[in-house]
């Protein structure tokens, strides 16, 4: 341990073997990142390249051609676009009160040590891992119950006793339940990230807990809550399995021909239809439509929706961080 004051920095430099292994490690790390960047760029590039050719006025404004005999290559994606928007809208309306309520309760009202709390938290957490195809099957099972037929339609043929179990209402409810755990989690984080000092200040002013949450905590958490909702919308827009199972495989709106007219809306909602994801699936070489150029057109629109929602999330984040400073 004795040291020579002229030769200060001692010890051997790193061995060659270790330097080589470090170099390999860094290489692996960079390659991982490159693969992610390449896949991202590839997906976007292919979709833009292939998709842009399919997009024209007819494509956007006509409904898909219902007859498979003619091939899926005629018609457009008006109904799938409307279906996507409709599904996003209804499931968001359904999920927000439920998720917000649960998130507030989880963030502010719970005694973390009680068994009840742990059960609630566990329930929400494990639900997040359930695959969407299982949610779809659940929706079919539940809404085939005859007394729930008002949400879809009476089954036909042999299954006259059961409801059809597929409709926009059904798909929206199932979708809302599917995205709920995720939305709850993001909302809870947003609520928790409001400084405790705000709550203490409110309590010091004689606010009850609920009044403090409503008047101070929730407004402060608004950017995070909005982010949760937008991310949830992205999940709805991108899901295929639930839509395929609970909205059915019909590419057009089955509820009514002129579905955009207000007096047809009840029929529209209890009827089946499609979204951009199921249309893409249907039109891909793996589906009955087999019209890849249509599939690419729809996929292009889908990715545009994803990009816009991503941009909204970034915008919310930027704006809230600007407000804070």
């Amino acid at each position: 341990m004795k040291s020579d004051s002229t030769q200060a920095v001692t010890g051997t430099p790193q061995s060659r073997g270790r330097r080589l292994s470090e170099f390999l490690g860094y290489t692996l790390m960079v390659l991982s990142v490159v693969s992610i960047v390449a896949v991202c760029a590839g997906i976007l590039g292919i979709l833009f390249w292939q998709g842009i050719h399919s997009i024209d006025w007819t494509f956007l404004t006509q409904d898909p051609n219902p007859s498979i005999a003619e091939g899926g290559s005629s018609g457009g994606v008006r109904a799938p676009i409307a279906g996507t928007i409709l599904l996003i809208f209804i499931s968001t309306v359904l999920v927000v009160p439920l998720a917000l309520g649960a998130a507030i309760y989880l963030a502010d009202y719970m005694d973390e040590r009680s068994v009840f709390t742990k059960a609630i938290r566990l329930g929400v957490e494990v639900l997040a891992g359930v695959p969407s195809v299982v949610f779809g099957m659940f929706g079919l099972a539940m809404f085939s119950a005859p007394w729930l037929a008002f949400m879809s339609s009476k089954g036909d043929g042999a299954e006259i006793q059961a409801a059809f179990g597929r409709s926009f209402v059904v798909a929206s409810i199932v979708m809302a339940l599917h995205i709920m755990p995720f939305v709850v989690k993001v909302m809870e984080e947003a609520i928790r990230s409001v400084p405790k000092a705000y709550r203490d200040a409110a309590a010091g002013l004689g606010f009850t807990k609920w009044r403090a949450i409503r008047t101070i905590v929730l407004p402060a958490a608004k950017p995070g809550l909005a982010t949760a909702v937008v991310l949830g919308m992205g999940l709805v827009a991108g899901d295929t399995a639930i839509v395929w199972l609970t909205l059915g495989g019909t590419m057009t709106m089955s509820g009514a021909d002129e579905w955009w007219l207000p007096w047809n809306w009840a029929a529209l909602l209890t009827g089946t239809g499609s979204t951009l994801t199921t249309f893409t699936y249907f039109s891909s070489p793996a589906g009955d439509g087999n019209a890849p150029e249509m599939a690419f057109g729809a996929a292009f629109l889908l990715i545009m929706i994803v990009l816009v929602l991503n941009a909204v999330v970034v915008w919310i984040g930027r704006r809230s961080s600007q407000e804070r400073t």
Partner: protein
Amino acid sequence: MGGTTGATALSHAEQVGMDGLVGDGPLRRKLETSIAKWLLLLASVIAASTVLLLIVFVVGQAIPLIQHSGFSWLWGMDWDVALQEAFSEEIWVFGVLPLIVGTLLTTTGAVIMAGVIGMGASVFLAELGPKRIRRPVETLVRLLAGVPSVVFGLIGLTVVVPWVQRTFISDELLLKYSDIPLDGSGLGVAIIVLTFMILPFFVTVATDSLRAVPQRYREGGLAIGLSPWRTVTRIVIPAATPGVTAGLVLAAARAIGEAIAISMVGGALAFIPKISDGPVMLLSPLRTMAAAIVENGETMNVAPIQSVLFALAAVLLLSSLSLSLLARVVFARLQRRMGVLSDREI
């Protein structure tokens, strides 16, 4: 001077008192508070009990199959032919083993690949990547997370599969393995597609776990003369193991349930890829449980088919629930082993 302050303080106190006691009226406020509390409780109970609803309905619909043929379907080998026959006559004998094997193979492959690539990317994002590049890479990861599964499937099917066919499948190969339909789709492409589908989730979790490792561990490592790379591999990654491992288990839960993309690129045949075929195993077609469900989603008016599809859904549901629980247990166990007292224990 002192008197003035005292008076202001007093009047202020009065104001607060007035506001708190009179305000909108204490009764109304009390009512609002208790109603709110009950509504919030209701929302969280609904949220948490959804999982019970799922179990009841999905498992419930699988019961007819179990009544007819017990659990023999779990180890039966025949899926495709049995399904065809079930359309014309009422049979209750199915074999889902090929689907289970297909699911296990794709999931295992994707989890391993996503684990390796994901750790590399996470170390880049959380520790060693140039700071200026981290932000854009993170944006891309988030973007990748938003890419719908059907888009992965579409590109896999129209771009990757034809490429694999052109590159790897020669005429000799076709002759040699005439019993396997080789067209480019199959295990290999399924694993690649699935890898990049679960990768963003794993990268997010792993990056968060690495970032949660206290800075003082890094400084401690550097201070005893470890290089940045060695500090990360010897100290930071081991310290992040609980979170990373739990993330990998949750990624597996996602992989087993992926339906659409795998159905598109898996070759749509309930075939069991054989290890004895060597690399050709990666070209062998397969079908997973989730894929089988969506592929037959339209034909559910036949009772036996409906029941066996629900049985598959039940297997998926119970597996995903077990994996979620496993992730929690693994997390708590590993943390306790490191000596960290966790408040997240079950």
